[in-house]
């Protein structure tokens, strides 16, 4: 970039205006992104606390911390629902997507700024509905499987209604992003020059737009089943409980990729910057995001292998499931090839990116085990699944999210955090995570089922180890949070482009001015031309 960022101290940053309405009624995509960031972080920490409580209960084989097993069931339902629907699904896509997409493509805002604000408020309404359900929370697990969810007396209706409302927010955000990427790219920002985060966000937006309505209608039907007794999922009335699972996973499997594809985008941004090399296999990474988005609609039955579905369908879907591994592996190979012979700098965000590759590969490969029909029959609903899922969700998405927090922090706030503390907290998070979840693979393989508050004594040593790990992980996240919050109050002002990134969002002052670009830039080169000049 030329010199557009010449430190011009006269500009007004997007953070300048103070006051409640200046935030609550803003249509500035950057502010909305920050509001999402704060809200989802809150829910992440809340859901993290419920997880710590569950792990504490599991220190001993007996029920001692919770007074009833239902309380334990409520705890894991809350943990799952909050993490999935309130943190991970809207998380990276809405917070980082909002902040970064217009900056990266050279636009002044998203296509529909007011709709964007509406999405945020709809999201908040959804969270409020869910919070009111906390008085008598559901105990069904985050999947709300029938027939139990219909029979249980706990407050399933409110919690599903909350998720239904969230769906709206997700759909509107996805729609907004697709239109933004198509219609608002700066001149010269061709598809093959787009940052990979944009490709990833676009693929995610397709899933948000077209998968979410199916879970919307599913949850609506569940609510109707409970309130009007329509019998769609009730065998006694001719219904089919597995139909619920079919519908639910038609959304929720693509939703898994709503959770993780944005993280792929983040990793593709961080790695070339700190390897000082052009990204390897740009097109392969870009198109594989799309391939994942498309294939993800063909594989949902692999969640249901033991629920009494047809063997024929199970065999077909087991095969189809293997297809997802291909585009995912393509990405991993390309990131590794980008690192090869690079001059790597271990910035805290790079540490998270590298742990992402390592942990996500474990998560992804164990996913292939679980996709294999015969193996899944043995491992289904055991801690093996729990470990796999957390290796993908924490080892993948959350590591990507933490990496993004540390990477774009100077961009958001024009401040920086203590790098040494950040590295220390990364170490605790990485070690704590592995100590927590790696033993669970073995437990699960030996037959420890998930979602039980009590267990046979033979599993105790592994459970104790896992709980100790959760404390290390919790401590790491706590230190990281404190460090990031403290950074806002620090006086250290970093350079506008501390990593010498070539991406468009760094070619402007930090924090960005209210209007992003005084003049819409004309893009003349690829985003990843590191080492060329």
């Amino acid at each position, binding site marked *: *970039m*030329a010199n*557009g960022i010449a430190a011009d101290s006269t500009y007004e940053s997007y953070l300048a205006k103070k006051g409640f309405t200046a935030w609550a009624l803003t249509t500035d995509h950057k502010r909305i992104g920050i509001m999402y960031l704060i809200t989802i972080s809150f829910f992440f920490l809340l859901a993290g606390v419920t997880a710590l409580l569950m792990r504490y209960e599991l220190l001993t084989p007996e029920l001692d911390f919770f007074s009833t097993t239902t309380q334990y069931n409520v705890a894991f339902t809350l943990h799952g629902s909050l993490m999935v629907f309130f943190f991970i699904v809207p998380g990276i896509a809405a917070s980082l997507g909002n902040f970064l997409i217009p900056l990266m493509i*050279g*636009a*002044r*805002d998203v*296509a*529909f*700024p007011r709709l964007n604000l509406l999405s945020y408020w709809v999201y908040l309404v959804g969270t409020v509905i869910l919070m009111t359900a906390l008085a008598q929370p559901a105990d069904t697990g985050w999947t709300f499987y029938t027939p139990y969810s219909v029979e249980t007396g706990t407050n399933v209706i409110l919690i599903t209604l909350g998720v239904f409302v969230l769906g709206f927010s997700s*759909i509107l955000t996805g*729609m*907004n992003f*697709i*239109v933004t990427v*198509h*219609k*608002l790219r700066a*001149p*010269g920002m061709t598809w093959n*020059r787009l940052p990979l985060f944009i490709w990833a966000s676009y693929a995610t937006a397709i899933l948000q*737009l*077209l*998968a*979410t*309505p*199916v879970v*919307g*209608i*599913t949850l*609506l*039907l569940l609510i*109707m089943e409970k309130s*009007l*007794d*329509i*019998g*769609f999922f009730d065998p006694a*009335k*001719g*219904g*089919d409980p597995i*139909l619920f699972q079919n*519908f639910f996973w038609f959304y929720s499997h693509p939703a898994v990729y709503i959770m993780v594809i944005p993280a792929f985008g983040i990793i593709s941004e961080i790695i070339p910057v700190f390897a000082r090399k052009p990204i390897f296999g740009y097109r392969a990474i870009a198109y594989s995001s799309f391939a994942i988005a498309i294939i993800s609609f063909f594989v949902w039955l692999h969640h249901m292998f033991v629920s009494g579905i047809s063997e024929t369908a199970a065999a077909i879907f087991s095969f189809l499931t293997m297809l997802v591994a291909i585009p995912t592996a393509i990405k991993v190979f390309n990131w590794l090839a980008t690192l090869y012979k690079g001059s790597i700098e271990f910035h805290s965000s790079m540490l998270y990116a590298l742990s992402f590759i390592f942990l996500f590969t474990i998560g992804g490969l164990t996913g292939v085990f679980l996709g294999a029909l015969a193996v899944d029959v043995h491992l289904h609903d055991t801690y093996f699944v729990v470990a796999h899922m957390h290796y993908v969700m924490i080892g993948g998405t959350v590591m990507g999210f933490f990496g993004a927090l540390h990477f774009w922090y100077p961009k958001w706030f024009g401040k920086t955090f203590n790098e040494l503390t950040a590295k220390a907290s990364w170490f605790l998070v990485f070690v704590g995570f592995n100590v927590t979840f790696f033993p669970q693979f073995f437990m699960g393989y030996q037959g420890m089922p998930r979602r039980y508050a009590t267990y046979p004594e033979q599993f105790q040593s592994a459970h104790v180890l896992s709980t100790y790990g959760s404390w290390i992980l919790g401590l790491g996240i706590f230190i990281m949070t404190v460090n990031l919050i403290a950074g806002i109050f620090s006086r250290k002002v970093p350079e506008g482009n501390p990593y010498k990134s070539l*991406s*468009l969002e760094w*070619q402007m002052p930090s924090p960005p001015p209210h*209007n992003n*670009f*005084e*003049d*819409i*830039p*004309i*893009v*003349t*080169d*690829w*985003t990843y*031309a590191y080492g060329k000049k």
Partner: protein
Amino acid sequence: MSTTTADHTEDHAHAHGHGLGEAVTHDAAKFGMWLFLGTEILLFGGLFAAYALFRAKYPDLFVEYHKNLDLEKGVFNTFVLLFSSFTMALAVLFAQRKKQLYTTIFLAITFVCGAIFAIVKYFEYAHKFEDHIYPSKNIFYALYYMTTGLHMIHVFIGMIIILALLGMNMKGKFVKGRYTPVEVGGLYWHLVDLIWIYLFPLMYLIG
């Protein structure tokens, strides 16, 4: 990335939006609505899938109970809704040609058609409730109430949109400025029609 900046003074000329050309805003709004229609199709999609499954499982049940539906009212409503799509298309056409009065007339007719549809549907439901036929009666009626009910909600939303368009038109917004809202609102109304085009034979015309 190498970039240069260009002076887009024209950009600043537009007060609304964020300095985008009118055509971009128009395209964006229209495209956005098409995306949203895709969402709507898949929202109803769950019900269509449930319909396919249960009809394949219990063909006799569907044949038996669909006879209780009021075919005449169904046919009448189909004509009303098709006609309303026609008037909506005309409203868009006249908004485009900046004929304020005609736009008002055709938006109003579309609104009235929506209202007629709702009233007829109300009598159909009321009649069913009198006979103590509720969604819980059997799978067929559960489907009937869920699909037509969800469709009805969309009719109401469409009517609210048309009211808003009428208000904007009375203020002369489409004469002075872009007619984009009419076109986008029109797309939504046509979707309501599209869904009904499928619901009608699926519910009322089971051989």
